[in-house]
């Protein structure tokens, strides 16, 4: 089972890998689930995203045709460097 801490770490690192290019929420959830076995439930990832947002690591913006897109905040960028 992937813990929430692991999910948040993976979310932050995935967003860091895009070097500032925002990821639509569905794509971010895919990134954290699809290639991993056991694959964490999408609902858990969605919850981890909300948690990371509440912790100030990521922020979401509503974009036409894409829904909510996510990117790292300055705090999130600092956090990634410690992971």
């Amino acid at each position, binding site marked *: 089972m992937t813990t929430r801490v692991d999910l948040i770490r993976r979310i932050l*690192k995935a967003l860091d890998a895009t*070097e500032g290019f925002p*990821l639509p929420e569905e*794509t971010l959830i*895919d990134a954290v689930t*699809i290639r991993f076995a056991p694959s964490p439930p999408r609902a858990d990832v969605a919850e981890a995203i909300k948690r990371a947002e509440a912790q100030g690591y990521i922020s979401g913006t509503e974009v036409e*045709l894409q829904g909510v897109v996510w990117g790292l905040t300055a705090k999130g960028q600092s956090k990634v460097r410690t992971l």
Partner: protein
Amino acid sequence: MKRQASKLDGHEAELTRWFREERLTLAQAVTRLAERGVAVSPSRLSAWWARYQQDELQTEAEAKLFADLATGSRIAREVGAMAADAPTQAGTLIKLLERLILQVSVRGETPQQVKVLPALVRSAIQGLKVQLAERQVAVDEGKLELLKARAAKAEEAEKVVGDPSTSPEEKQAKIRAIFGMA
């Protein structure tokens, strides 16, 4: 990947070598560990090894994912940058392309075609711009012809108005005829 601390931590390299290169059994590995002062049961070692391999797979999968995301976002950014300079009709298409590129890269299926997308989009936009420019030229030429025709009619009407041999009624009829009025 956080795991519970184990007395086997620190022996990863040895155990990997024993199991993968020397093909040791669990019992043999337990004996060797005991010789090094590490007492562990075969079942505990087996569980630790399974977890270790799982972590290894996850780490590899993450490394590959982050590399693919970096590639995908670079391509998406390159394609997206073209939206600023693209005709309005292409803007939406580019936004959708950006999204698809990211989805494909997340799935680890970035085909060669995705890598050449920036060049294809650039070429398509260039083609679209040329088409739009040609269409604009055709519209402008049409307008010019219309203006020329109007100027010719105005000139003809002016002659009719200035002709002293024509009665006002005839002038009116001729002018109506020139401008196609019933």
